[in-house]
């Protein structure tokens, strides 16, 4: 297929959908391999961004793509709408979201262990905002619900994929002693084990 037409089809599909479309879906519907689709999209992204006469751009969201307006023109576009409501996520909700993003799927009990406080309302608020969703139940007594982040999370915070999340490892914090590091690893393992078993 002509590459120009391919770009047109992709743009038309992304426009009509209004939502994120996964590479798989684009590839299946158009009947072109994923690698080519990805190349075309990357090319489109560069062209859109470099061309001031384009008011839209393409964002990669959780291994899919979605059209959005260019942030450069925010000042004009916002006037079309009523003043935007701030998302209103509390510190508690953001903390909880941060924990879920790095540990999904995760139970509420585990979240509360990390935060040290009850997180019922934070979890409820995130569910309501469609930033997290239930992703099944842990195969453990009581069958606790597991939570994971949604596409809306990736969209709202501009992460392309899992690998786009900043990396924070325990070693980020300077380890002063060899002994501590070892026991730290051990500790983490047992904690993990506990979660799996419980």
């Amino acid at each position, binding site marked *: 297929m002509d590459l120009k037409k391919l770009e047109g089809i992709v743009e038309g599909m992304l426009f*009509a959908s209004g939502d994120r479309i996964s590479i798989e879906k684009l590839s299946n519907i158009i009947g072109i391999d994923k690698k080519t689709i990805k190349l075309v999209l990357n090319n489109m992204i560069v062209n859109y961004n470099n061309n001031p006469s384009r008011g839209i751009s393409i964002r990669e969201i959780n291994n899919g793509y979605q059209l*959005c307006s260019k942030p450069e023109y*925010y000042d004009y576009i916002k006037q079309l709408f009523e003043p935007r409501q701030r998302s209103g*996520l509390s510190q508690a909700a*953001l*903390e909880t979201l941060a924990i879920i993003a790095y540990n999904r799927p995760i139970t509420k009990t585990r979240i509360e262990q990390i935060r040290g406080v009850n997180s019922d309302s934070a979890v409820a608020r995130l569910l309501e905002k469609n930033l997290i969703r239930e992703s099944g139940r842990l195969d453990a007594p009581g069958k606790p619900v597991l939570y994971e982040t949604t596409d809306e999370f990736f969209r709202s915070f501009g992460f392309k994929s899992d690998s786009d999340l900043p990396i924070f490892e325990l070693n980020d914090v300077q380890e002063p002693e060899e002994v501590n590091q070892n026991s730290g690893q051990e500790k983490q393992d047992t904690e993990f084990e506990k979660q799996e078993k419980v």
Partner: protein
Amino acid sequence: MESVLSKACTIKIQNFEGPFDLLFHLIEKNQIDIYDIPIHEITDQYMDYLFAMQELDLEIASEFLVMAATLLHIKSRLLLPSPKQNKEEELDPREELVLKLIEYKKYKKFTEILKIREKDSERYFYKGPEDIDIKHEDEPLELSYDELKRVYVELIERNERKMNKNTGKMTQILQHEKVSLRSKIRDVIRTLLKKPIFKFSELFSPKTRSKLEIVTGFLAILELAKLKKITLIQQKQFADITVCKCENTDLEDIDEENIAAEN
């Protein structure tokens, strides 16, 4: 402690997400090495906050109290001489707390990043799906006659297998038990001819009748009520039902009609 100071502290306490958040604040404020927390001082400061809250009659979340107990426990363990000889192998009582704090710090850092990214993302606008009139063509469902027949035969066979060798006898017993709705209607009408008002339990008592007869009897009075021959009164749920003959209604003709139909 001075009340002005305690007030200043309390305002901050309300902003803490939990005991870890508060501890973290204390560690950063005092510029303490997280791996070598002076438990004695931190515990004192932590307790000061709690006391300040208490003085102001603020409700202290239980999690803060649990942490206080943990801190005091660690403090006491550090004060007491260890019974063990080999101090090298002994675990530092602060360790578990430190690990939890480090993990918490990780997410706290990420939370700050989320805040910034959320603000950046506000400048992007998305749109809803386009309102296109898509005609859905129904794909015809393909059924196979043989498949349908096979399913039905299997079903019949399955039902047959459920019956045991005594099927014949069972059928007789069941037939014996067979209760016709019509005969129950007749029972009700006969009773009404003698007594215009009676209680359902008088005629259909579990002591004298089978379950099937009682159920059929209930259907009989419903049917008669529908034909506006009788009125049913029940004072409350599960109470006995009173059956009353409607005025100006001829019960005889029903009876005859039914009996005629049966014969």
